[in-house]
């Protein structure tokens, strides 16, 4: 038995926050797949399987557009984003099928066209596929708009929807994790933090994965190599696009300007004082001390070399694990 709490958009609140102790069964594993709003959560990708489409709670968005555009209304901006979850109002609304939004009393929201079944939560989703042709399609191809004669045909529901809401899971080929997704999903586990956590659990009979997923633990004992290569790919890409050029520009500017200045000063000093040998000879004691200190620091950093090697090993092990997944 386990207990879970969720943030409004479905992210599970881990054990250890605001009194959610493992003694209250938070963070425990009970093998139950049903998570946020009772939908099945894929343990590998972290996505929720709503019968019509997958939902990423970390993003607060569906991973595919509204299959039938049933909720789209030109006068209602909240309905324009076909990936949005419950009109971005998860505190008041639910979407049991991934197709239509319902309020707490089970009434379909903004459903003047009758596309959503009026029965609310228990409605059959086959009705959704019969959206009337006057519903404005948001995702319509350019040629069909230009021709002006074509009536937009209702989009065929996905296979899972055709099963009349039976909750049939898409086939493995549709849900298979890519290698990169696998690497990102297991980045926390294949690290020193993950090893400490699993070692602790194995030796002392606990089940919590809180240490593996804790901010500080990951910051200190996390694996930066996997993180840079695969971790949070979408987020990293967005960050790189938005911040990368600025960081690079600032960094390059600083290095270049200071580098030139230092080089120039050194060159002038050396020319004026007789060159490198004289400069070194005049301050041999200081030079020895400096070299000795640099050697000391370099010797200490040999452990960095070992730490990097350990993390490379973790990355290789994770790669082997992900490559072996069917």
């Amino acid at each position, binding site marked *: 038995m386990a207990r879970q709490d969720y943030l409004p958009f479905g992210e599970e609140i881990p054990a250890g926050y605001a009194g959610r102790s493992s003694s209250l069964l938070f963070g425990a594993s009970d093998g139950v797949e049903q998570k946020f709003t009772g939908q099945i959560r894929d343990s590998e990708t972290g996505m929720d399987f709503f019968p019509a489409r997958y939902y990423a709670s970390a993003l607060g968005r569906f991973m595919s557009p509204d299959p039938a555009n049933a909720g789209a209304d030109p006068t209602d901006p909240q309905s324009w984003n076909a990936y949005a979850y419950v009109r971005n109002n998860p505190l008041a609304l639910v979407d049991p099928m991934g197709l239509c939004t319902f309020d707490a009393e089970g009434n379909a929201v903004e459903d003047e066209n009758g596309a959503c079944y009026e029965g609310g939560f228990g409605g059959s989703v086959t009705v959704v596929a019969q959206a009337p042709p006057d519903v404005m399609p948001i995702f319509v191809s350019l040629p069909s708009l230009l021709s002006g004669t074509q009536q937009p045909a209702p989009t065929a529901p996905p296979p899972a929807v055709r099963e009349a809401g039976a909750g049939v899971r898409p086939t493995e080929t549709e849900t298979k994790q890519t290698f990169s997704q696998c690497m990102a999903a297991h980045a926390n586990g294949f690290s020193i933090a993950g090893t400490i956590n699993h070692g*602790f659990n194995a030796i002392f009979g606990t089940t919590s994965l809180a240490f593996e997923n804790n901010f500080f633990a990951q910051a200190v004992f996390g694996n930066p190599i996997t993180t840079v290569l695969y971790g949070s790919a979408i987020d990293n890409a967005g960050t790189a696009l938005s911040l990368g050029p600025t960081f690079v520009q600032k960094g390059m500017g600083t290095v270049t300007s200071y580098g030139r200045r230092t080089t120039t000063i050194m060159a002038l000093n050396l020319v004026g004082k007789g060159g490198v040998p004289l400069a070194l000879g005049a301050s041999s004691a200081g030079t020895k001390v400096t070299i000795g200190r640099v050697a000391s620091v370099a010797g*200490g950093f040999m452990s960095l070399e070992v730490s990097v090697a350990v993390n490379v090993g973790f990355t290789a092990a994770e790669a082997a694990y992900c490559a072996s997944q069917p």
Partner: protein
Amino acid sequence: MRNRSQQGSSRLAMAGWLFLFLLLIVVISGGIATVLGYSPRPRPLGWVLFTVGTGVAAFTVDRWAKVLPGIFGITTLNGLIILISGHALNQPATKVPRPVGALFTVVMASASFITASLADRHVTNTDRAAYLGILACFVAMLVCVIASVGHWEVPVCIGFIASIAVLWARRFLSVGNHGAQT
């Protein structure tokens, strides 16, 4: 200058000390967790593990302290990733303010530099206490997270920074009074 076989064995030894350091964290924190009743194991076992782990840690400080620069070096890299991405490592939902990320990175880089510069020096009793303080912070972090103890971050961070400050003072005073002892 050392030859390749000596360097290889030195790296192997370093890997061993790294393993010992991580094992000490697990054993000591596991002992504490068991004593406090967070593990199904018998409490006397917890006391034994805690005592043995602490004793071995104190006895081998000069060994496992050599891996701290590497751990803090990796942590500095992680801090840079956190600083740039603005969220916890591999956890986009856990936002980290940039000043916090910057402070974390600076503290860890400083810790790495200070421990590296002391790596080849004789370990005094002051150093020993500071290194054990660092180990204690890691142990406290693991115990608090596993046992779901709240609000542990600030005391542990203060303890960590205090331990690093002691090492920094030791290095500063040593250089000021006696010069480098490499």
